[in-house]
């Protein structure tokens, strides 16, 4: 067996972030306390933002923190606090089909792993132009190639906002 290669700093950082994300993801679905699930979700979202930074998509990373952690995770925590019927683990957190779901998830992951490992992906990153140009290119793409999707997204967010307020009203 050839000598083990010493991991470079980049690989160590990736391993740390990926491990943090994976363990938080596991806590999200495995802990019986619902509030701990929400906290672990926040940790997972931060970990994913860290992965985006490793992939040199900085604007996406801060957008992820801004939207996911600042808004969605806060919304989820609010909803947990407003509907606190099953908080302290008195009833089981999993439903009738948890065994089959666990087997299915593990099998799914195994198939995905086998599939991914079997294909010779490209394993080196090409050199990115400066990040400033990346952000400029992103903005240009939004208003030239994908402008229809962009506008429809705005309309969708407006509809979702109005709909959520209407649905959650007290009368």
């Amino acid at each position, binding site marked *: 067996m050839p000598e083990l290669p010493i991991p470079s*700093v980049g690989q160590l950082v990736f391993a740390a972030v990926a491990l943090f994300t994976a363990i938080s993801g596991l806590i999200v679905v495995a802990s019986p*306390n619902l*509030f*701990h699930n929400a*906290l672990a979700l*926040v940790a997972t979202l931060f970990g994913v933002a860290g992965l985006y930074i490793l992939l040199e998509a*900085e*604007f996406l990373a*801060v*957008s992820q*923190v*801004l939207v996911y*952690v*600042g*808004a969605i*995770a*806060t919304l989820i*925590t*609010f909803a947990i*606090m407003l509907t606190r019927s099953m908080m302290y683990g008195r009833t089981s957190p999993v439903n009738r089909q948890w065994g089959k779901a666990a087997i299915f998830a593990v099998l799914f992951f195994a198939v995905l792993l086998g599939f991914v490992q079997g294909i010779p992906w490209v394993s080196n990153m090409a050199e990115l132009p400066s*990040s*400033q140009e990346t*952000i400029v290119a992103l903005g240009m793409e939004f208003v030239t190639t994908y402008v229809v999707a962009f506008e429809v997204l705005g309309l969708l967010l407006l509809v979702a906002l109005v709909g959520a*307020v209407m649905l959650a009203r007290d009368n």
Partner: protein
Amino acid sequence: MREHWSEAFIGLLISFGLPELLATILAYAIGGFLLVFIALNSALILIWITRKVISRMQDRIGPNRVGPFGLLQTGADAAKLMSKEDITPTEADKIAYNLSPILAVFGMVMLWAVIPFAPGIIGADLNVGVIYLVALGSIAVMSALMAGWGSNNKYALLAGFRVVAQLLSYEIPMVLAILTVVLLTGTMSMASIVGFQSLTIAGFNLGFGWLGFLMPGALLVFFISTLAESELTPFDLLEAESELIAGFHIEYSGMKFAMFFLAQFVISWVWAAVVATLFLGGWQGPFVDQLPILGLVYFFIKAYAIYVLQQWIRGTFPRIRIDQMMYFAWKVLVPLMVGLIVIQAIVQKLPVPVVIQYALIFISNIGVVGIVINVLTGYFRNETIRTKRSFQPRSLIGTMQPAE
């Protein structure tokens, strides 16, 4: 671009004979440690300034016993807080209760990484620096929510909800005000925005090309939003001792409370520094090109001036109710900023020279803000005369009234 401080420092360390990797790690470690040290210790000066300013507002002297001019008062307070008993309420969620003050300080310290102190001295010149600042506000939101929940106290929970409502509502005018700056300068990096604000006359950098001169409306809205984000009066409904039993840190005592206290003061200074960076030119000023260290002096003068202004307002204004606060954020500030952005976007695409664009932006800022203030004061006055009590908006959405 100017040379980043780390390059000079790493060069110095390499000249001592260290290998390059070790020099890099050491340089960043020392820089990071220095930044955190300054961040945490500036609370001492800031609390002293606050107490002196507010006491002079209230026609009294303020702390003057401990040390010359009361400078060591904060140290005495910190020692007192450290010696207090650390009480944990029963059935408090241990993880949430203990993690929340740590997250509050963590969010505050992380903000220091993108503030440009002097030409070349910035923690990390991120290309998305301004959005990074707003995104880290969400850590403060999570910490408040966790504190409210972990205290196992329904008043703390309610106060936590209201804090989150306030912070999230005022994040939107803040982001929109930042958007006007980004539209004008074309970059989101803090160092580049400060570099934009130079005024070069005959090859000499006068350093007075501040964006605040150009967009006073956006400056005003951003300043008000920073008051709300740091929970200062007139927006400190959630931390006042007489309202809702001192808010979400009611169940904290001793060092944990000290961490919340420290985080609150330093965050208000950090937002003052951001106002100084985005709208008042940061380290720009006369003679900065020749003597870069002068930029540090200018920056701190501006940041502390805005901080004193914040504390001045804190000592002067009464606090507003939560429904009035939500009304103000959503129905006044957001439409105002959206109007300003639309006008600025249209103006920036007109085929006129840049100076005319700047003049149009300035006129539109003054005009829109003046019209809004006129309309609003008339409306509030009519409402007060009609209902014979202080202004009460018709909708109570977002105010999280306690359930009966």
